[in-house]
C-alpha cells in the first residue's frame, strides 16, 4: 500500500545538517624562532623560515643552513551547552605541527631555499556522546605545504623574493553521529574521509632595510582552494529500514584556505636587542559556506548539503623581541592578539574560534659554531564565547550547537639548526 511509504516522508529532515568541516584553523607555527617572538617575522630576517614569513627578507639571511622544528599543540576545549548540563571536554589528543627549511646563498644578492610546513590543520575529538554529537564528533584536518623560494637583493637595502607554494599533502577526516537510532540502541554515525588534490599557490615579499637598526617588510601569501574531489563516505549503525537514505559512496567538497597580507617592522636599538611588530590580515571572508556534494547515492536522503560559514577577514597584531644574552644564548618573548574570523552566532564545533591572546617565549642555545637548538613555547587563551539557540535561529545556523566554548592551547616546540 502506497500510504505506508508516507510514514517516512519527513526522512529528508534527518540529516539536513551534514555541516561538518573546518576553518579558522590557521596554525601559526612555521618557524621556531618566530614562534618565540609572538609569531612576528615579516620585518625580520632571523633564519631560513623567512621564506615563509617574507621571501623578500630571505636574501638578507646571510648564512647557509638547514633547520627543522617540531611542536606539540595541546588543546584544551571546554564546552557547556545552552540548555545546561555538565561541562564537556575533548578526548585530549595532541597534534604535532612541524616545519623545516634549507637556505643557500648563491651570492650576496641571490639566495634560494626550500621549505616544508603545516600552516593549516585541526584535530579535535569530542568526548563520547557529547551534546554536539550530531554536529561533529571528530575532525582531523591535515595539510603539508612545500615551498621553493628565490630571493634577490636589488640593492643592499632592498630585497624582493617569491616562493612557489604547493599543497603537497592534505587530508580530512570528519565524523558525526546521525540522529537515527536503531532498535538495538545504536546511534548511526557518518564519516567522511578524503585527500586533497595538489594545488599550487605562491608567496611574494619585499623588504627595505635602510640601516642595520631598522627594517620594514611586506608579504603576501596567496589563497589556495583545498579540493577533495572523491572522498569516501562511510556510515555505520544505520538501521536497515532507513538504509536507502544513506547510500552515498563518495563526496566532493572545497575548503578555501585564505590569503594572508602581512606588514612588519624590525628594530635593533642595540647589538643585543631586536624588537618586531607585525600585522596580518587573513582573508577568511572567502569562506562563505561549506558545501558537500554526494555521489553514488544519497546521504540523509539528499545529494548535497550546505552549511553557512560567513567568515570575515581577520586581523592579527603581533609583538616580539629577542635578547642576545651571550654568544651562545638568546632569549625571546612575544605576544599577539588575534581577532576572530567567525561571526557571533556562527561558531561551529570544528573551529570553536574566538578572539584570543597569545603569549610566547623562546630561546636559542648555540651548542657549537654549526649546531644550535631553538626552543619555544606558546600559550593561547581564547575569549569565552557563547551563542544561544535564539542566535542560531536568527542566523539560520541551527546545524551547530548552542552553548559556551572556552579554549586554551599550550604549544611547546623544539627546533634544531645546522649552519654550513
Amino acid at each position, binding site marked *: *500500500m*502506497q*500510504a*505506508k511509504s*508516507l*510514514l*517516512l516522508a*519527513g*526522512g529528508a*529532515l*534527518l540529516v539536513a*545538517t551534514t*555541516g561538518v568541516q573546518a576553518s579558522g584553523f590557521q596554525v601559526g607555527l612555521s618557524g621556531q624562532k618566530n614562534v618565540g617572538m609572538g609569531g612576528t617575522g615579516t620585518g625580520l630576517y632571523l633564519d631560513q623560515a623567512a621564506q615563509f614569513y617574507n621571501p623578500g627578507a630571505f636574501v638578507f639571511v646571510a648564512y647557509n643552513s638547514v633547520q627543522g622544528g617540531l611542536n606539540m599543540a*595541546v588543546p*584544551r576545549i*571546554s*564546552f*557547556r*551547552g545552552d*540548555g*545546561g*548540563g*555538565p*561541562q564537556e*571536554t575533548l578526548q585530549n589528543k595532541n597534534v604535532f605541527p612541524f616545519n623545516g627549511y634549507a637556505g643557500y646563498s648563491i651570492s650576496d644578492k641571490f639566495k634560494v631555499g626550500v621549505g616544508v610546513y603545516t600552516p593549516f590543520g585541526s584535530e579535535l575529538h569530542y568526548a563520547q556522546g557529547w*551534546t554536539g*554529537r*550530531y554536529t561533529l564528533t571528530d575532525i582531523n584536518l591535515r595539510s603539508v605545504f612545500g615551498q621553493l623560494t628565490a630571493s634577490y637583493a636589488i640593492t643592499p637595502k632592498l630585497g624582493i623574493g617569491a616562493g612557489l607554494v604547493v599543497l603537497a599533502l592534505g587530508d580530512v577526516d570528519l565524523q558525526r553521529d546521525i*540522529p*537515527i*537510532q*536503531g*532498535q538495538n*540502541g545504536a546511534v548511526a554515525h557518518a564519516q567522511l574521509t578524503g585527500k586533497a588534490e595538489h594545488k599550487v599557490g605562491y608567496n611574494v615579499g619585499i623588504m627595505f632595510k635602510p640601516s642595520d637598526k631598522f627594517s620594514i617588510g611586506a608579504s603576501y601569501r596567496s589563497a589556495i582552494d583545498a579540493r577533495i574531489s572523491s572522498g569516501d563516505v562511510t556510515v555505520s549503525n544505520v*538501521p*536497515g*529500514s*532507513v538504509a536507502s537514505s544513506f547510500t552515498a559512496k563518495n563526496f566532493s567538497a572545497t575548503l578555501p584556505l585564505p590569503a594572508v597580507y602581512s606588514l612588519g617592522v624590525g628594530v635593533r636599538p642595540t647589538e643585543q636587542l631586536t624588537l618586531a611588530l607585525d600585522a596580518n590580515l587573513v582573508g577568511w571572508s572567502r569562506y562563505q559556506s561549506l558545501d558537500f556534494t554526494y555521489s553514488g547515492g544519497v546521504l540523509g536522503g539528499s545529494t548535497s548539503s550546505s552549511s553557512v560559514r560567513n567568515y570575515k577577514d581577520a586581523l592579527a597584531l603581533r609583538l616580539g623581541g629577542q635578547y642576545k644574552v651571550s654568544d651562545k644564548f638568546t632569549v625571546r618573548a612575544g605576544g599577539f592578539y588575534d581577532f576572530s574570523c567567525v561571526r557571533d552566532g556562527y561558531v561551529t564545533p570544528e573551529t570553536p574560534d574566538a578572539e584570543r591572546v597569545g*603569549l*610566547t*617565549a*623562546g*630561546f636559542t642555545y648555540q651548542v657549537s659554531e654549526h649546531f644550535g637548538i631553538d*626552543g619555544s613555547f*606558546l*600559550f593561547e*587563551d581564547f575569549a*569565552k564565547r557563547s551563542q544561544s*539557540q535564539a542566535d*542560531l535561529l536568527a542566523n539560520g545556523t*541551527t*546545524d*551547530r*550547537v*548552542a552553548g*559556551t566554548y*572556552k579554549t*586554551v592551547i*599550550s604549544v*611547546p616546540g623544539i627546533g634544531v639548526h645546522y649552519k654550513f
Partner: protein
Amino acid sequence: MTTFSLLAARAARPALALLGLSVGLAGCQADIDAPSASPGPLDFTSYVAVGNSLTAGYSDGGLYNEAQATSYPALLAQQFGATGKGPASFVQPAFSAGKKDGSGYIQLRTVNGALAPTQPTAANNYLGELLAATGNKLLSGENQLEAYSGTQPDNLGVPGISVLSSVSALTGGQAPYGLLNPFYERLLTQAERPAKDYVTYIGQKTPTFFTCWMGNNDVLAYATAGGVVSLLNPFGGLTDTTRFGSGYRAILGTISKNGTVKGAVANIPAVANIPYFRTVTVAAVAAAFKAANAASPGVFIQTSSTATPVRLATSADLLTLTAQAVVATGAGSLPTNPLPNQYVLDADEQAAVLARTTQLNNIIAKTALRFKVPVVDMNTFFTSVGNTGVVANGVNNTTTFASGNIFSLDGVHPTPRGYALVANEWIRVINGYYGSTIQPVNPTNYRAVLFP
C-alpha cells in the same frame, strides 16, 4: 581589569615550561562556570504530578517501564533535585521487572519492505515484549494489568483519565472508574476499586509542589474516535463545560490544598495538530486509489450527517492514523464501501473539538488564577512546534510521524525526546513565574523513535 590579572597569572606558565616543567599542561583546562540552579521560593521535597497518560509517561500506545522512566514528571523531579531542594526520590508506579513492558507498546517493523507500526499481538508473539496483563478483563473489556503494590506514587498520572472521570459525582456514581480503567485499577486495593475516585486518591498526598495536566481526554477521546461516541463509554464525548469546570476546580483545589501549595498547571493542546491526524492524508489515500484504479474519483467517507451519510472526502477532513490499515483493505474506494466514521474527523467535528478545547482552556486559566498557579500554555507550545519544529543541538525535531522525533508510534503521545521538550516548557514557565532557575534537560540525550 580581571582579564589582565588572569593573563599575568597565565604568563607564568610558559616560563615554567621553558625550564622543562611542562607538567602543568594537563591542568590548563579552562572551566566554564555552571549556570546556577536555584529553587527560588520553591520546595520540591515532595513533588506530586497529577495527570493522564501524558503525565504517566505513556508512549507508543502503551505504558511500559522504559518510557515511564522518562516521563516529564520524572525529568522534572531530576531537575528539581539539582536545585538542592529535593525530592530525595520520585516514585513512579513501575511494573515488576519480569513484566517491564506493562500494557505493551507499538514497535516499528518492516512489513513487505515498508516500515509499519506494529501492535503486539498473540500472532506476533507480542513482539517479544514482557507484558503485565493478568489474563482477566475489566468491566470495560480492557485487559487487567499487574497490580502495583508499592507506596502511593508521586507520579499520579493515569492513562486515559479525564476530568469527567476523575470525580465520581459528575456521573452520579454510576461509572466507578477503578473498575473501568486498568491503569487506575492497578493502583488501588481491591476494596478501593469500586468506590475511590481519582480526586479522592490524589487528596491522599501532601505535596510541597505539584504539577497538574488534566483535560486532554475530555476532548481527545472524542477526536481520536473520529467523533464517534460509543454508547458503552460514558467518557467518550466532549465533556460539557459545566461538569468540566466543577471537576477541574475539585482537582486543583484538592491537590493545591485550596491554593496553599505552589505548583503549575498545563492546558490542552490543539488535538488536530498531532500526527495521529496528519499522517494519513486524504490526498495521499486518493492518490493511492488513483494509482490502483485510474477512474477512482477519490476517498469515500462515512459522516455523522444524516443528509449526506456518505460523501467524497476533501482536504478539510482529517483521517486517523488507524485508518491506514483499513484503507489498505480497500475501504473508502467505493461509495458502497466508505471509510467508516470512526476513522474520519470531518470539518464539523474538528470545529466542535476546537471550540470545546478553547472553552476548557479558559476554565483552566481561570481556575489556575483562583488557586494562584501559572499555566503552561501547551496549546501554544504544540502549535508552534507543529509550525516550525524545535531544533536542539543540531537536530531538528518536528511533529512528523516517526521521523520527526517528538511523537511516538501512536501518533498522540510523545517519545522520550518529546517528553524532554515538554519538561523544558514546564521549567521555562515555572522559572518565569516563581523566579527559580531550574535548569532544562538536554533533549538530545533522550531517544526518539527506534528503527528496525
